[in-house]
């Protein structure tokens, strides 16, 4: 059993991973804050576009069933160019994984453990991810299944608790579309589309291992829509409880919203509990990116990825601290540079470049095998 090389996850596990992946760092840093009270509309638009993007990714995978992103790249671009592009993807995945990790480290060190060195959080978190990935994709999927009820319930409960605390001001949502559609569209592309939806490009490494591959497209699109809906819900809560201006200024919007909760004079300061709920989302996200990078390295170097789990993850833990000097720099990078120089090329340009090449090559291969078959 343990000898088998290919591990499978079920459709439900895929959906669970995608869902937690989507809401993982969104729950930490929040989205669409630039569009003020219309953030939820922006998220809605981005969700629809994101679902389309994910459908496109799965469509690409369906051309070559059973092969993951890296194998596909090699197929399209040949051995050496394929390796170079694959290495770029590895770099991208590992870097983003370090960024996500940093998001969480900042959250913990600024909200809970003010005097704890950031390294401690970073190493322990990445250690968990490494342990999970070492045990394999199946274990990863199942772990997601165990935690999804808690993540889901808590996200829903935050909204209800805010509502019952009387902090839910629908007035804050007005005026709807005060500045017209322009700013929203500008915000949706590139920022909202690429984060969190475009990041699902990593799942091109995982989706091929789903046991019912034929249904993967439907499930992925549906999951993206559901998670988009939950993100809209979260954004609505943030706007309604904080107001657009305060939301713009706060670093961790959902957390600030949760601070407003006060029930029965007993349930207070639940923001801490929120932190621990998003922790699992972050673990999923870091692990998915890490898995993407490791699988890429496995493909490039022909070494089972399990050998590289611990060294690479420790490097991630280190990079997460080194990528920026402080939180402000980290966020500024995330807003200004990352979408433009990392997300757009890897999430959109490369796949679009690859699409015609892939379709052409698959057709050629088919024709050849047909010719062989008829001979």
């Amino acid at each position: 059993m343990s000898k088998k090389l290919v591990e499978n996850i079920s459709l439900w596990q895929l959906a669970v991973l995608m869902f937690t992946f989507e809401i993982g760092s969104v729950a930490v840093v929040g989205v669409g804050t630039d569009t003020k009270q219309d953030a939820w509309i922006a998220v809605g638009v981005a969700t629809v576009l994101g679902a389309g993007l994910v459908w496109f990714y799965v469509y690409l995978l369906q051309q070559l069933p059973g092969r993951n992103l890296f194998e596909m790249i090699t197929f399209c671009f040949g051995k050496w160019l394929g390796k170079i592009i694959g290495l770029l993807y590895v770099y991208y995945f590992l870097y983003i994984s370090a960024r996500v990790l940093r998001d969480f480290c900042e959250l913990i060190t600024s909200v809970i453990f003010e005097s704890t060195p950031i390294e401690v959080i970073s190493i322990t978190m990445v250690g968990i991810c490494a342990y999970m990935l070492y045990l394999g994709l199946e274990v990863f999927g199942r772990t997601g299944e165990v935690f999804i009820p808690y993540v889901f319930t808590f996200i829903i409960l935050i909204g209800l608790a805010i509502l019952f605390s009387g902090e839910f001001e629908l007035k804050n949502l007005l005026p709807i579309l005060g500045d017209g559609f322009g700013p929203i569209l500008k915000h949706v592309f590139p920022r909202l589309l690429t984060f969190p939806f475009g990041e699902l490009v990593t799942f091109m490494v995982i989706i091929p291992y789903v046991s019912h591959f034929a249904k993967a497209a439907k499930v992925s699109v549906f999951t993206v829509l559901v998670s988009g809906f939950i993100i809209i819900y979260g954004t609505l809560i943030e706007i309604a409880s904080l107001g657009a201006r305060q939301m713009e200024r706060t670093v961790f919007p959902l957390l600030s919203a949760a601070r407003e909760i006060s029930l029965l004079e007993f349930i207070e300061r639940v923001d801490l509990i929120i932190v621990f709920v998003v922790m699992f989302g972050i673990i999923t996200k870091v692990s998915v990116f890490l898995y993407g990078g490791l699988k890429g390295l496995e493909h490039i170097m022909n070494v089972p990825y399990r050998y590289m789990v611990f060294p690479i993850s420790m490097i991630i833990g280190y990079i997460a601290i080194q990528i920026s000097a402080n939180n402000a720099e980290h966020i500024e990078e995330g807003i200004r540079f990352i979408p433009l120089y990392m997300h757009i090329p890897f999430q959109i340009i490369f796949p679009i470049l690859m699409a015609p090449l892939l379709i052409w090559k698959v057709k050629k291969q088919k024709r050849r095998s047909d010719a062989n078959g008829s001979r």
Partner: protein
Amino acid sequence: MGLADFLFNRRKHKNNNKITAEELFQQENISKKYYKSLEKNKKQIQELFQHSFDFTIDPIKLGDTDACVCYLGTMLSKDTLTNKVLNSLHPHNDHPRHKDISSIRDNYFPTVSYEYADTFHKVVWNVLNGYAVIMVDGQGKALSLEIGNVEKRAITEPSTQTIIRGPKEAFTEDINTNISLIRKRIRNPHLKFESFYVGRDTKTQLVIGYMSSITNADILEEVKKRIEKIDIGGVLDSGNIEELISDKSFTPFPLIFNTERPDSICGHIMEGKVALILDGSPFVLTVPSVLTDFFESSEDYYQPFLMSSFIRLIRYISFMIALVLPSLYVALSTFHQELMPTQLLLSIQAQREGVPFPAVIEIFVMELTFEIMREAGVRMPRAVGQTVSIVGALVIGQAAVEAGLVSNVLVIIVAFTAIASFVSPIYNFSISTRLLRFILILFSAIFGLYGVLLFLIVMVIHLVSLRSIGIPYLAAVAPFDIKEQDDIFVRFPIWANRKRPSYLYPESPMKKKGKHIPSPPPAKGGGK
């Protein structure tokens, strides 16, 4: 089943190459040959059993032929031996002269169950099993007569898994009694019991019981394979077997279910599991087991379903309490005071004012004290039990608080944790929480709530990676199966529960065909 093939690498059943007890003797350098000459046989067996006071050879004469009866006096009832065997062989009995061993049996012992032993190994084995073996000069085989009737414990109420409603019988140390307890409940020819012998020195009988019509063939195959692989000097309890055949040893969680309740074992067998019954152990194992099995008591099925669902949820909650409550206290009182309501925080702090230790030391010491008391409570002679409980409760509990060594809240927490840990119906499982609790306290002392969560996530990752005979340990939860949820955290009414657990890949997946919902008879013509 496609997946089952995949999991178990389906292999057709080989002619089972299990080692019989007779072959085991060969490894011990006991000669196999049974001679025709009585003298040689006698010498051989006397040499083997020398220095054993209970080994007896009674020489007898069958007409003018020499013969002897040999047996272990402690392994059979002497009354039966005299009545059934020795009397009918008595020379005063007037009998025709039989020389042939089968005619001896036909004429002298027509009603005693018997076996022919044509090798010396078989003779030795039969003697060891409490047979009386009759060896006749000039015959190529010996006659072994089953006498049996060694003293054994009566069937009593279970001592570790008590229930309020339901059958009160428990397994005993005698394997035949145990099997009969199962047979009595499942009257079905498909209920099979296959016998194995384990332990080089002890040669203990291990019987696997299963329903051939239900149990998945691959699971059965895997179980047999693991039993055949057992190579050890001796096994004394099913606990040894558990450790020898489980998938992984480095885990605090029990991967194999054990119980002393026949009804519970029958329930498991009917679901498609395999029971392992070891001679001399009142605890019967079932494999494969999943985590949720350890939260199910057989009483759940005898009580109304709403009530048992509630109780089952209580068990899960108390498992969590037993696991995390002390560490939560440490985390909250050391790191996250703001999470506590102000009034509660004030009262806790007021109590802790005079306590000289940090919370983690305090709770560590108290938990350790409790563990010591628990262990003492299990081992000490019954007669001093009262004393220890008084000393424990009064001195450690009350006096420690009054002396200002520990705070009141802490005693409440330790006591509550302890009680919660006893809720688990299977004792094995509650032990695992004991061990984990200490590590968890350490984590929470270092990292606070973050540490608690860190540990819980690692624990869950570990749990989902476990397997029991190849079946995921968290089956039906992860991998999630919505159709199995009728008997996991809650129990649906019995008529609604129509499927056997699909994670066991049973050969016949349905328990029953139709869906009968109990309802009052249809009203006739507009009531009264």
